[in-house]
């Protein structure tokens, strides 16, 4: 009796590539009208025939991230680690927060990881080198997105009072540094703080003249 051999072929071993990161919960962004931060952007300024890049400061809304974790801040458990944030969002809106719906703004990215999914903002890029996760966040793009939400009227109300409070905070630092301004390094820090305070005040003045149109310069 003779047998017919079958040609050998290697067994296909396609191992699924997973991000070596812990699973985490999905999230949403929110903003409270009192939360602002002063940021600088490079802006092309043309004077006469010459164009140069200047650093210009803007007050931008501090958009904050809240993870939807069952058992935390009134989030009910739906299934396992899945939570229903409905009542939490309602509570936040009652307290004056603006809820930025992830389904509408599409800012959540997810990766498959062991035992679940890893959720991060779309501005965060993730690379894996030597089984180590290297994350980087495109802060500039994120800030420009937050500025665009002012321009399209999503984030309201815009109240310069909170910017004035921020500029008053910088006065405290200036007062403290003035005591030791004979030290060259402190003198330099002091000058930087003076510049930031001046830029804050000039931004408030520009906003009072131009309104939210001022944010169109950076988006």
């Amino acid at each position, binding site marked *: 009796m003779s047998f017919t051999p079958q040609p050998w072929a290697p067994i296909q071993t396609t191992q699924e590539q997973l991000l070596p990161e812990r699973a985490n919960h999905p999230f949403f962004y929110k903003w409270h009208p009192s939360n602002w931060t002063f940021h600088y952007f490079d802006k092309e300024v043309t004077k006469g025939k010459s164009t140069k890049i200047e650093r210009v400061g803007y007050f931008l809304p501090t958009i*904050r991230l809240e993870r939807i974790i069952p*058992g*935390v*801040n*009134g989030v009910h458990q739906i299934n396992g680690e899945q939570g229903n944030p409905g009542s939490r969002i309602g509570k936040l809106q009652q307290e004056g927060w603006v809820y930025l719906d992830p389904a509408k703004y599409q800012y959540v990215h997810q990766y498959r990881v062991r035992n679940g999914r890893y959720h991060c903002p779309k501005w*965060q890029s993730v690379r894996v080198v030597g089984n180590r996760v290297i994350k980087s*966040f495109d*802060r500039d793009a994120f800030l420009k997105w937050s500025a665009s939400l002012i321009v399209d009227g999503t984030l309201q109300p815009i109240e310069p009072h909170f910017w004035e409070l921020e500029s008053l905070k910088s006065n405290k630092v200036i007062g403290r540094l003035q005591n030791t301004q004979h030290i060259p390094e402190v003198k330099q820090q002091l000058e930087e703080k003076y510049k930031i305070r001046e830029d804050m005040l000039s931004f408030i003045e520009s906003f009072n003249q131009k309104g939210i149109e001022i944010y169109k310069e950076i988006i």
Partner: protein
Amino acid sequence: MAQMISAEIRLLLKDSVNLRNTPFVDFVGSINGMGSDTIRVRKAFLDGEDGFSEFTGATEDGAVGNKALVDGHVDVVCKRNSLAYAISDLASMTGMGSDIDPFRIAEHISKSYDALFAKLTAAVFGGFTAQVGSASALTVDVWVDAIQALEAAASNKGAPGPYVCVLHPAQFAELQDSIRNEANTAVSYSPASFEAISAKGSHYKGSYMGVEIYTSSYVTDNGSNYAAAMFAAGAIGYATGMPASLPGAVEAMEMGEVMVEMDRDATKALTKVVGHAYLGIAIIDDDRGVEIATLV
């Protein structure tokens, strides 16, 4: 013999220090027998807040108007948290003494509750409305801003101290660097003593300007900023639950806040050790806390 096995198992580093047994986190109740998985915490101005401000009568016999009582509530929802291990008879029987056996695993599950509590505590910090910090590292200036935000909370009524701060370890390192660069020695940092660490746990780092400091690797970030917090007692509360009986369970033990039960799969020679804990945590009074957001 290929290798000698040491009799002692060295424990790996852990991060499970939490504020459960401190005055900084309130126990708001158990859901057992309450008819719901939610504890509703009631809040009201009931301790002399109004200062007779309603009397506006222009004359001696003018009528005083009724004052509405200011009140509110917060819901603390409990969630089932579970952890299960299966240990084979072979692993159990070849163990040296009782180093890794079902009862040691049960103890491990019970202790994991501390890590769960630390994780959920850190998860609420991003819910505080007040926020300090900037697009920079954590400095003494940001630290002072946080203290002053609490002192000026609720339209300058102020949150009563003492305050506690839970920082990401990287933020604490930045604060240490900033303190080193301070020229002013009027406010000095008090590092945690051996006795204080023994009492409060390995992640207690001392106090600065009267604020107790703990670090926690569970402090979250949004890719750009950490969400740590400084808060006063009464800011955060938690609720728990514990099954009263487990009909049909072969063996069940109440270990602290965790119900641990054993299950046997004889066909596979496996003993399963399963723990359940019901826990919910929430911000009770938003005015008593401030988020410290500094660059990752």
